[in-house]
């Protein structure tokens, strides 16, 4: 049996696209190397501005059931290892078989940027996302007592999730400064980025934000007045004037060395002390997971507001390669709701392209929906996401101004 559409990634973007295509009678197969559907939606658990809870497991279940009921074929625990174009067909090589289709959607999501701290290879050190998945999906405590290195929207949300599961979090703090991590290690920069998100965000950050807001009035002095013992959020001290200089332990984490830092992230001599913990979470932000789009031959642009290198695409989620689409965090780091809305757009684009533009109206409406959800989204990973999206549109226009043929065949 041949497929009309292959979708790589069973997260909110991939599943939404799959449902859209299948509802319009297309034959859809979704591939994911993870063993459960839902992608990174699975671990999410946070309070909405209206006080209800966003439960990623339930949202994943809904999408999964809709997909299955619409006739989508799902292949889990199947990693894609290569993509090749042959004539008008995309060949997708997995560890099991090779699949072919005229339409390919790459919705591979994002991964966490590694953020080295001395001692970070010890067992017991993990990314915040790892602790989230272990806690909420696998339901195993990552440890008895941990510390979170990196203060940002994602780590704040996950700190609360650990707390909900009755896991003790000593504090959230900064990493020791190095040449790569100035955005995360210099207190001034961190305060700045938190102030940017605070007025947009619901509970997780608003609680840091509203506390910081008190200091915002005196703006640049905020840090000066930031208490040395930190501000508490759900009983977790948020330390913006301390940094972890070393994670120690013989064959696993036994503790961290923490020091006071000045406004520029420089260690204040003789301020170091040890804290015993059995696990450490590091948060260095997210980047689009885009290798497969690169293998397929898609041009890339570096757009910092979108989280790194992103494949060239337009608002219809088309790439310059005919039959190749992208959606979700591969196009820029945003929340799951935006990803799902983009997935619907990608699905309608595929349907529309296949059925002689019969769904132009629906597609336009779906694109509007993405914009609305983006504006309403309480959690913005990057405060200037809209700028990033505009840049991408500019690159797209330039690309087609410079290339006579509309699509690479």
């Amino acid at each position: 049996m041949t497929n009309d559409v292959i979708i790589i990634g069973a997260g909110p973007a991939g599943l939404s696209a799959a449902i859209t295509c299948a509802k319009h009678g297309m034959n859809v197969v979704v591939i994911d190397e993870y063993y459960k559907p839902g992608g990174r939606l699975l671990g999410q658990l946070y309070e909405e501005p209206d006080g209800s809870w966003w439960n990623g497991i339930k949202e994943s279940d809904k999408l999964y059931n809709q997909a299955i009921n619409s006739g989508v074929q799902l292949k889990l625990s199947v990693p894609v290892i290569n993509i090749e174009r042959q004539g008008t067909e995309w060949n997708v090589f997995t560890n099991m078989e090779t699949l072919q289709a005229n339409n390919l959607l790459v919705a591979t999501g994002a991964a966490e940027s590694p953020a080295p701290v001395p001692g970070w290879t010890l067992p017991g050190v993990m990314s915040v996302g790892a602790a989230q998945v272990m806690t909420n999906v696998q339901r195993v405590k990552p440890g008895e007592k941990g510390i979170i290195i990196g203060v940002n929207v994602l780590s704040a949300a996950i700190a609360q999730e650990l707390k909900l599961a009755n896991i003790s979090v000593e504090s959230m703090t900064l990493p020791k400064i190095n040449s790569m991590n100035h955005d995360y290690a210099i207190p001034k920069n961190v305060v700045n980025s938190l102030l940017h998100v605070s007025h947009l965000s619901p509970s997780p950050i608003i609680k840091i934000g509203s506390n910081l807001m008190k200091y915002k009035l005196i703006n640049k002095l905020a840090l000066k007045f930031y208490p040395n013992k930190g501000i508490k959020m759900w009983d977790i001290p948020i330390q913006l004037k301390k940094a972890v200089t070393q994670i120690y332990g013989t064959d696993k984490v036994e503790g961290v060395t923490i020091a006071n830092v000045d406004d520029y992230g420089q260690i204040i001599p003789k301020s170091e002390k040890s804290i015993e913990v059995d696990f450490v979470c590091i948060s260095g932000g997210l980047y689009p997971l885009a290798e497969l789009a690169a293998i397929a031959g898609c041009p890339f642009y570096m757009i910092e507001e979108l989280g790194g290198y992103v494949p060239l695409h337009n608002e219809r989620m088309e790439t310059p390669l005919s039959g190749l689409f992208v959606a979700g965090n591969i196009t820029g780091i945003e929340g799951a709701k935006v990803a799902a809305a983009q997935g619907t757009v990608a699905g309608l684009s595929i349907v529309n392209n296949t059925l002689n533009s019969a769904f132009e109206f629906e597609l336009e409406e779906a694109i509007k929906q993405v914009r609305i959800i983006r504006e309403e989204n309480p959690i913005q990973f990057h405060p200037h996401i809209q700028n990033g999206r505009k840049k991408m549109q500019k690159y797209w226009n330039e690309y087609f101004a410079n290339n006579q043929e509309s699509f690479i065949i």
Partner: protein
Amino acid sequence: MSQRIKYHPLLEDYKDGKNITFIFNSEEYIGIEGDTIASALLVNGIRTLRYHEETGTPHGLYCNIGQCFECRVNVNHQQGVRACITPIEDGMVIKSQDVLPTPVKDWREKHDK
């Protein structure tokens, strides 16, 4: 030691599945159906999944979503299996990946001064 989160104020109670018996580094352990290799070992108090190929330092899971490849183990003689995205199965024989020979480096250390 790490523990199972059975009750959660917002998520459903953890459903105890079938016991899964598996071997890790020649010892028998019990996990629960639905565990990954990494979570089954962590709930048994085991964090070290592999030893660095050259230095032999211990490594555990880092990203837990299959991206960083820090957690790779041998499963039923297959190398490089990611413990964090592979469901545990009855009778699995899992081994930590271990130090590999470094003949060139060893030779140089003996002969270079």
